[in-house]
């Protein structure tokens, strides 16, 4: 077998491996992206850009490292580098069709999932979700990433350090400060005054 065919075979294998990883990880990655950005539109952009960069540099992916950790490393960089430049909020009407490709047939309506059949619980969950997300959005990016990876993704400090390309000490410090800030955002000002 000549080199070109061998190379083509490797590329084909890489592509099929990558496709399988996209299918396996996209939901998890999207959830993290949503928690980082706070809205669906930016989460969508962030996830797509993350997977695009992962594809570009897939030959550098070290198979001994979990793919998710490598993906979150890319996502952290993309998030810090690019989404900072964008406007913070996008307005999307719930009645407005979402274009998911080229052509008019590639449009669909926004589906709002029903997570709880009990309306009261659903309302409470949604309210709590909104409050927590607003508090998360107020954190500096590095703290937000650390808190999300630790508390939502349940990653260890070592994995977070790997994903954020920093030391364990930095992870510990970012988590400590991030949680402290988050708590201050979630605690009513009167309670904070009484505490101090």
């Amino acid at each position, binding site marked *: 077998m000549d080199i070109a065919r061998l190379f083509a075979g490797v590329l084909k294998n890489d592509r099929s491996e990558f496709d399988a990883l996209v299918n396996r990880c996209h939901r998890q990655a*999207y959830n993290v992206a949503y928690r980082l950005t706070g809205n669906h539109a930016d989460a969508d952009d962030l996830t797509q850009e993350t997977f695009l960069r992962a594809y570009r540099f897939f030959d550098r992916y070290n198979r001994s490292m979990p793919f998710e950790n490598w993906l979150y490393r890319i996502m952290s960089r993309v998030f810090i580098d690019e989404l900072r430049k964008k406007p913070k909020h996008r307005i999307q009407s719930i009645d407005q069709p979402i274009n998911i490709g080229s052509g008019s047939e590639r449009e*669909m309506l926004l589906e709002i999932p029903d997570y709880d059949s009990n309306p009261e619980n659903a309302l409470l969950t949604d309210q709590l979700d909104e409050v927590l997300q607003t508090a998360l959005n107020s954190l500096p990016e590095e703290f937000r990433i650390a808190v999300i990876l630790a508390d939502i993704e349940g990653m260890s400090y070592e994995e977070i350090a790997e994903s954020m390309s920093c030391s364990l000490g930095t992870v510990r410090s970012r988590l400590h400060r991030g*949680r402290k800030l988050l*708590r201050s955002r979630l605690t009513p000002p009167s309670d904070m005054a009484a505490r101090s």
Partner: protein
Amino acid sequence: MNCRKVNHLLSAYMDGELPGIESLQIRDHLNSCQACCDDYNELLHMKRLLGRLKVQTPVHDLPVAIFQTIRVDSELASHRTVAARTQELANGLRAAVGPPRVVAIAICAAGLVVFTFASRNSDKVHSIGSWDHSTPPASEFTAGIRYPDPQRFVSTPSRNTPGIRTLDEVSFTGQSYRWPDDRLYSRRANTPVSTVDYTQFGR
């Protein structure tokens, strides 16, 4: 261990990321300090709330969108590669030959030389022979036009018109003669003429 230090380590303690000794010290402190214990419980509560946040799912078929983005990007990348190679080639040429203005001048000069040489060559008139007038002409008349007698053609082969002995070997062209010196000329060296206006040879 005092409250200040414990406060700094509470987060790592909660995550189980502290070495055994420090972890034990903090546990002892929390058992004895209500304020730190309250802080710890608040942190733990917050961590649990974050862990219970509902999982957000994409609003459309995300893998399809990802693969489409990759395909578009790959196409753009291939275009960028062609452009980059062209640029590299141009840079290489510039480095090897010089700035574009010099290259353009050189090309123009070379073109001018080639054109001059070619036009000089094509305009050059070569004699391929003449008519013998030592005997009275036996020309024929057709529709009032007098033709030269092919039998009276005497070829004068030269380096530019080799192999021409009789008029049968000559293909005439309208621009291939000169009158009235009775000589038949070829405008292009080594190239037989294709047509001729015989009236020019009438006497």
